[in-house]
Each structure stands twice: as structure tokens, then as C-alpha cells.
């Protein structure tokens, strides 16, 4: 990649960092100049924060907040319009018997089901998010990725969850990854863009940090851990590194960007650990669905069960929450 082909006057790279994306060499220098992440240190910190004991009102607040941050997700080959409509109903009224239960943030589906989701959620504040760009592997051409994105946007998606080209990233072709995100961002227009790093394939925390900054530089509104199709998916320490990145991004540019861990978060206990991390690593202002989401499916029912336990004062059972 040469300087002539790179978007040197990128309008949405914030001024303090404009030089960083001038050319391939600058971008590489910047990413490799980011402070390293010590594995043991970050895992220890994550485990330490995981021992926070969240009780009573704090727990109730955390459960409701977590529900409101869920991107209720179905990303299966077997997905049908019926399945999507059922999930949409659940997204609007997670606990039909409890009117005070918050709705979720979004419904996350494949592009071809966006239209169904949009129709089912019409008139509500629940967003429709669509994966795109050859999700989950991203192993297709740029043209197909952009067409995939346009399909989602034109069908009415409010949010697009793209995957980065991990192969290019691991080959060190950072400018290719950067430009692809930029191109997808352009195709999104006003639609919110979440950039999936697929941290399980990046393997090291140093790579997670570099990919996070790469996605932020390219204009991603959110950085997202995983597709859910690769193990490990979201982990607390990976999310820590990403929360630290958006915190540092804010310090450098004054811009707020979001984080979405996805995959593997199944219990209320786990979700609360993530909220504690959001609170203490990124900061209090990230404790909103505008800036933090959970990509999950089964998590929602556990949150609802725990919510009932908290509200009713006794343990609830799985038959009291809806299975879709």
C-alpha cells in the first residue's frame, strides 16, 4: 500500500491522530508503538475486578442495565423469518409479565433477515443490527463485503457488525484492514458500525490492542470482540484491553466509542463482572447501551430469572421465562 492510495486527508480521523494513517509505514509505526499488554498483569487485574461483590440495589440496577444492553442475537444457518419474529417479540417484551422490565438494545441477525426484523420491530426503539462483510470469516472479496453491507443498510439495519480481515491483520497489512473498514463505514452512511476483531484469532493482547486502535482510527463506532463462531470468544481480560482502548481514545480525541463483548457470556454473574469492568476500566459514562453492548442469546433469560429473584425475593425457575 502506498501513500497515494491511502486516504491521507481522512475527514473522520481526529486531528491529533491524522498523521497516523498517512501511509502504511506511519500506521504500522503507530500500532507497534502502542504500549504492550502484559498477559499476566491484565488477567490478574480482570480476575481481581471479578471478585467485586455486587448486591441488593446495585445488583438490580446492574441486571436492568445489562438487559438494556443486550444485542439479542441469532446467527444460525437454520434461522428463519419465524425465528426472527419470535426473537423480536422477546426483544420488545423480555419478560411479558413484568411491564417494568427494560427492552433489549437490538436484535442482531444476518443481512437477509434484516427486513423481517425491521418489520417486526417497527415503531419500537429496539434497533436492528446486521452482521455483514462475509460474516463470520470475512473470506470474500471487498466487492462482496460492501454489497453485503449495502444489503443490510438498504433493508433498514440501524447497526452493522462487520468482521475485519484477520488474515490481512496477521500478515501485517494494516493499511488494507484500515481501508476496508473505511470502505464499509462509507457504505454504512449513517448506520452505526461495529467492528468485530475476532480476538480469538488474534491470539495476543498486543494484537487486540493494535486491532482496537486500527478499528477506532478507521471510524468504527464500536469495537466488538468476536463473532461467536470462534473459541475463545469474549473474555474479561480481552474486554479490559478494549475498554482501555476506548478510554484512551477518549483521552486523546474527546470522542466516545463503544465496546461489545460477544459470545460466551451466559450468566448474570458474568454480565455483572463485565459491567464492573466497564465502570472501573473505561469509566462510568460507558455504562449505557449507547456505548456498551452484550452480544448474547442465552444471557437474556438468565438475566430475567435473576431479575425475578431480586424483585420477588425468592428463586425463580426456567419455566417462568420464555424460551424462543
Amino acid at each position, binding site marked *: 500500500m502506498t501513500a497515494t492510495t491511502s486516504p491521507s486527508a481522512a475527514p473522520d480521523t481526529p486531528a491529533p491522530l491524522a498523521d497516523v494513517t498517512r501511509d502504511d509505514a506511519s500506521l504500522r509505526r503507530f500500532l507497534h508503538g502502542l504500549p504492550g499488554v502484559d498477559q*499476566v498483569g491484565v488477567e490478574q487485574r480482570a480476575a481481581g475486578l471479578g471478585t467485586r461483590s455486587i448486591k441488593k440495589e446495585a445488583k438490580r440496577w446492574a441486571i436492568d442495565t445489562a438487559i438494556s444492553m443486550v444485542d439479542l442475537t441469532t446467527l444460525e444457518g437454520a434461522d428463519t423469518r419465524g425465528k426472527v419474529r419470535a426473537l423480536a417479540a422477546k426483544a420488545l417484551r423480555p419478560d411479558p409479565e413484568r411491564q417494568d422490565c427494560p427492552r433489549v438494545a437490538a436484535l442482531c441477525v444476518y443481512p437477509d433477515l434484516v427486513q423481517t426484523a425491521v418489520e417486526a420491530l417497527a415503531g419500537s426503539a429496539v434497533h436492528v443490527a446486521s452482521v455483514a462483510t462475509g460474516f463470520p470469516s470475512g473470506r470474500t472479496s471487498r466487492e462482496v463485503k460492501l454489497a453485503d453491507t449495502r444489503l443490510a443498510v438498504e433493508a433498514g439495519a440501524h447497526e452493522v457488525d462487520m468482521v475485519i480481515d484477520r488474515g490481512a491483520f496477521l500478515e501485517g497489512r494494516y493499511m488494507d484492514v484500515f481501508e476496508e473498514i473505511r470502505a464499509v463505514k462509507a457504505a454504512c452512511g449513517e448506520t452505526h458500525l461495529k467492528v468485530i476483531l475476532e480476538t480469538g484469532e488474534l491470539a495476543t493482547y498486543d494484537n487486540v490492542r493494535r486491532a482496537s486502535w486500527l478499528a477506532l482510527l478507521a471510524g468504527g463506532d464500536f469495537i466488538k470482540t468476536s463473532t461467536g463462531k470462534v473459541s475463545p470468544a469474549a473474555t474479561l481480560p480481552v474486554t479490559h484491553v478494549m475498554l482501555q482502548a476506548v478510554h484512551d481514545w477518549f483521552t486523546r480525541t474527546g470522542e466516545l466509542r463503544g465496546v461489545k463483548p460477544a459470545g460466551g457470556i451466559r450468566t448474570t454473574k458474568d454480565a455483572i463482572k463485565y459491567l464492573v469492568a466497564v465502570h472501573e476500566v473505561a469509566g462510568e459514562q460507558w455504562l449505557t447501551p449507547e456505548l456498551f453492548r452484550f452480544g448474547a442469546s442465552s444471557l437474556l433469560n438468565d438475566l430475567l430469572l435473576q431479575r425475578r429473584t431480586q424483585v420477588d425475593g425468592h428463586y425463580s425457575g426456567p419455566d417462568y421465562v420464555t424460551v424462543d
Partner: protein
Amino acid sequence: MAKTYKLYLGGKFPRSESGRVYPVTDTAGKFLANAAHASRKDLREAVVAARKAFPGWSSATAYNRGQVLYRVAEVLEGRRDQFTAEVAASEGLSAKRAESQVDAAIDRWVWYAGWTDKIASVLGAANPVAGPYFSFTVPEPTGVVGVLAPQKSSLLGLVSVLAPVLATGSTAVVVSSADRPLPAITLSEVLATSDVPGGVANILTGRASELGPWLASHGDVNALDPTGATPEERVQLAQEAAGTVKRVLTVADDEPDWTAEPDLSRLRRYLEAKTVWHPLGV
């Protein structure tokens, strides 16, 4: 031929700044030579020289220190006859017994020379800690060591207390036997003509009772071997040494049998275990 000897300080042979000398006699009272009578200012200069030499000596490779010390033993052996005569005169021994003392001293020096590159593997460790860390412990030289050499055993005793200091990588300020300093003076010449860097070993002739307290209280001396002091003096020296938390060697009231095979205890006293930790991660 009566000579007037000097001090060995910073690799050089200066007179005592005090200008003082004292007569040295054999055990029958026959005059042998004049020795420099070191003052506390000479001692101060010796500590400065030892401290200055410490970074180089302690960071030399263990192999190199071993080579330097082996070389000392060779030069020592080259002066075997001179040492035998001086030990015989100083200690009132027959030529044969003096000779065996000198041979034992050479062997002792060789023994310690061979330790330089084994200490870390024998006294160090990889620590199997319960966590994702690599932790290891290395013995490192303690610094500047003050040595009050034995009053009786003029060469074997001296070698037995000086060689372990140098083998660890520490540097030494030695106060020789007061009445039997000639082997110490000759050892100074041996050190000066082998490859020992100046200041690594400094040998002062004089009185332990006079210089000991200054060594014990000195803020830039890390350890003290009070062998050459009397038991009463040693109590006072140990008290003085507490002011700077010095490592003080525990020694028997009477001089031990220096011909006995040594163990690691003197080496250990001049070593600090340093434990280093680092996480294991990718």
C-alpha cells in the same frame, strides 16, 4: 637487610599518611623490618579504593575472576621460599612446618579460586513459585568487606579470610596481623604483580584494635570479619557495626585450626541472595 615496607592501597604502595612506622620482630624479638603503621585516614582511603573497585570486580565474569585468582596462586607459589622464611620467622615455626603452612595457603587460594564460577549454581535457585512467573535467586557479592586478619596465622589464616571475600566478587580492606605482617606485605606484592585490579584487595599493616572500630562504624563498608580482634573488642565492633546493619561474621573466641578443610560459610556471609520475578505470558 632491614627494609621499611609500605601499605597496599588502591593497587599502589603508599606510605602511611601519618608517616608512622613500627618495628617488626621475629618471635625471639629479633628485628626484621619496619612496617607502615596505618592510620584511620589510610583506612578511609582504602575503603574509597575498595568501593571504587567494586563495580568492576563484581561485574567481571565469574570465569575471569577465577582466572585472576588462579594467577594469584601461581605467583604465590613462585614466592614459596620467601613466604616460608617469613612465616617461619613470624610464627616461630620450623622451616618444614612453615613450608606446610605455605603449601596449605596456596591450596586454599586455589580452592576458593575454583569457587567463583560454581557459587551461583550451588547457592542460587530457580524458585518453583505458585503462579505464572519465572522466579530465580542469584547470590551477589555484598560489597566492601572489612577484614581484621588473624593475629597468629600470618599467611594461611590471612589467605583463609581474604580469598573467600574476593571469590564472591566483593572487595576487601584488610588489616593484617599487627605483629606478624611480613607475609601479608609479601602477599600484597603478589596481588600487585598478578592480575588483581587495584583496589580489589587493600592490605594495611597496623593495629586491629586501633582500626577495627573505624571499619565497624564505616557507612560504606557492608560486612565485617572481626577475626583479628580480641573477643572483648569483637563485642564492641559488633555493636558499632549495628549502626549500619553490617553483616558481621561470627567467629570462635580462639583462632581456629586453619588447616581444617573450609566449608561455604565464609562465602555465604559475603553474598546477598537476590530474587528476581517475571511473568510468563505471550
